[in-house]
């Protein structure tokens, strides 16, 4: 690694890094753009709350759902959000274990993004319920009814998966944050900030003992988090694969979903990285090299996802199952072909630009490509869900799905639910790992010194 262009320029100093990152919460540069963003996302959040109120008042009928398509936005967004989240964990955990230094400038906000995304994801299935107030029936508690949850149901699996994933990513994120909270605590001048960061830093002193135990724990959790990510999205895919519905009933779903998730996730990380880099002038810490590597990973994930697409088609024909093939054709030419081709287009066509180094290192282009990927994956999840359900077995029960106003308002509002906490995080917490970057700088200096 070190032989290549350094992730952090050698000209940087520890203090430099500290001040550069810590000033964001402490002095807050770019107040205005941040405020505008916050107001926007609060507006969205209000829309979300309005939609949910109406939803609970009237029932899920306000959405465009019907029989046969009785799952749509809520479920496909659940998959989408969770997918976005996965990149965060992968970046921090997997790359940490692989000793990829470049991750250290990205992992913190990537994880934060994960947490926000998982919150949204977890929200969706609850809104989706016909009687959300009985959600607690899904948990095994000693009820006066004497009835228990049904552990063979993929939905039961999901609720545990999401719960675990949320807890683990929050903890992982917080553990990594503690040393930096200490740093900010020590930089803080105002009493209020001191107490705020002081409490959350838990009195971290940077003692060698702390570091030793912390290191073990952090890496252990990382090692656990990687299989977790894989398992979580595999389970999500089983929610479909367990049904007999043509277009769902396939063994490639788990890997297919996990890859797609990572794909969209890395794109999302790239987008956020670029925005933050720009608004808070973090150019020295989130360098072009970071963008370059991110782009490469996204490209790789994209290609694997593309393989999934190809294999799905092959699988359909190879099965020789009349209905599988019919569904396949329907995806190509049917009423929802726009979703399929839209997904293919957005996911894979602009992606090819990333073969070129210049595009990889150009923030604007990378941002655009990433956006198209995120949109593409959105379309893919929609396609997988709706095109399979609306024509399943008996032609008599075929029926179309059209998203209603409330479908959209709930979704768009939820973007507010995603952005608001993230903006607050950016505002009040060190959104880039200070100590880990110092570590990198140290190592780079070492390397430079010893030839």
């Amino acid at each position, binding site marked *: 690694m070190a032989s290549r262009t350094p992730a952090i320029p050698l000209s940087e100093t520890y203090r430099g890094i500290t001040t550069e990152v810590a000033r964001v919460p402490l002095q807050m540069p770019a107040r205005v753009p941040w405020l505008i963003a916050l107001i926007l996302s609060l507006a969205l959040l209000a829309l979300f709350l309005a939609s949910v109120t109406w939803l609970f008042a009237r029932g899920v009928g306000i959405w465009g759902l019907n029989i046969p398509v009785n799952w749509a936005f809520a479920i496909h967004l659940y998959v989408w959000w969770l997918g976005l989240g996965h990149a965060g964990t992968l970046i921090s955990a997997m790359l940490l274990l692989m000793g990829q230094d470049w991750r250290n400038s990205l992992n913190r906000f990537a994880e934060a993004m994960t947490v926000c995304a998982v919150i949204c994801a977890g929200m969706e299935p609850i809104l989706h319920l016909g009687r959300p107030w009985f959600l607690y029936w899904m948990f095994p508690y000693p009820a006066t*009814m*004497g009835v228990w949850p049904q552990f063979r149901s993929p939905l039961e699996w999901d609720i545990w998966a999401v719960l675990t994933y949320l807890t683990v990513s929050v903890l992982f994120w917080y553990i990594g944050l503690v040393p930096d909270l200490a740093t900010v*605590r*020590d930089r803080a001048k105002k009493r209020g900030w001191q*107490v705020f960061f*002081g409490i959350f830093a838990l*009195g971290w002193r940077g003692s060698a003992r702390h570091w030793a135990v912390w290191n073990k724990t952090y890496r252990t959790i990382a090692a656990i988090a990687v299989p977790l990510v894989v398992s979580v999205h595999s389970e999500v895919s089983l929610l479909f694969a367990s049904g007999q519905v043509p277009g769902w009933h396939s063994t490639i779903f788990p890997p297919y979903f996990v890859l797609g998730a990572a794909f969209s996730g890395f794109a999302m990380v790239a987008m956020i990285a670029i925005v933050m880099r720009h608004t808070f002038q973090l150019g020295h810490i989130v360098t072009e090299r970071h963008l370059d590597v991110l782009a490469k990973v996204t490209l790789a994930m994209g290609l694997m996802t593309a393989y999934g697409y190809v294999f799905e088609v092959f699988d359909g024909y190879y099965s020789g199952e009349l209905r599988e093939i019919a569904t396949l054709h329907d995806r190509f030419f049917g009423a929802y072909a726009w979703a399929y081709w839209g997904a293919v287009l957005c996911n894979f066509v602009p992606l090819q630009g990333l073969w070129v180094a210049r595009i990889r290192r150009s923030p604007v282009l990378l941002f655009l490509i990433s956006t198209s990927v995120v949109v593409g994956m959105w379309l893919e999840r929609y396609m997988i869900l709706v095109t399979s359900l609306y024509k399943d077995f008996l032609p008599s029960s075929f029926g179309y799905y059209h998203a209603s106003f409330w479908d959209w308002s709930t979704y768009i509002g939820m973007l507010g639910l995603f952005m608001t906490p993230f903006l607050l995080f950016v505002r009040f917490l060190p959104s880039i790992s200070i100590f880990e970057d110092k570590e990198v700088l140290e190592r780079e200096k070492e390397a430079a010194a010893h030839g």
Partner: protein
Amino acid sequence: MPQIFSRTADSWLRAVAWGALLFAIGLFLVAFAFARSQYWDVVARTPLQPVPFSHKHHVTDDGIDCRYCHSTVETSANAGFPATHVCMTCHSQLWTNAEVLAPVRQSLAENRPILWRRVARVPDYVYFRHDIHIAKGIACVECHGRIDRMPLTYRAKAFEMKFCLDCHRDPAPHLRPRDQVYNFEWKPPPDHAALGRRLMADYHIKSPAELTSCGTCHR
């Protein structure tokens, strides 16, 4: 660098942390207990009735058979609520102008039903049938308690699903000979278990699997 927190800060922090934890646990326990409380199960409450009817008086003192008033208990899902004229069969001779009975006489005169408040009640989605339970040797007392000792009628047992399940999973201990079903004073013989087993066979009581199948009570 000055200290941010005083020496006592840590004690406070721990106190708060433990407090929060205990509070959470306590909350769960309270909810757990409340769901099983008499209040929640509407047990042992005597709603205000148009007439302060005493089962104790009619059953124990007068020795009237349950079926005299609840005449359809053996033939129908409902035990049957006595029509006004059933009251009047006796009260046209006894207590003919007792104040408490005014509503009854009025009801008969105006041909308006007396609106009693239901005491033993299961939700609409539960389909309980009296006839089959009587036929299989389940006594009134099993669900209604010692109604023969109630000056004012109240719900004796918590009609929770668990309450029904307990019996449906293992009916034997609750069985008694059919002719003893209305007998509140019945004492089980020493070999109750043996009796239970015998009655299970005699009355062709179904297997727990069938008795606890959801469709037995919910439709």
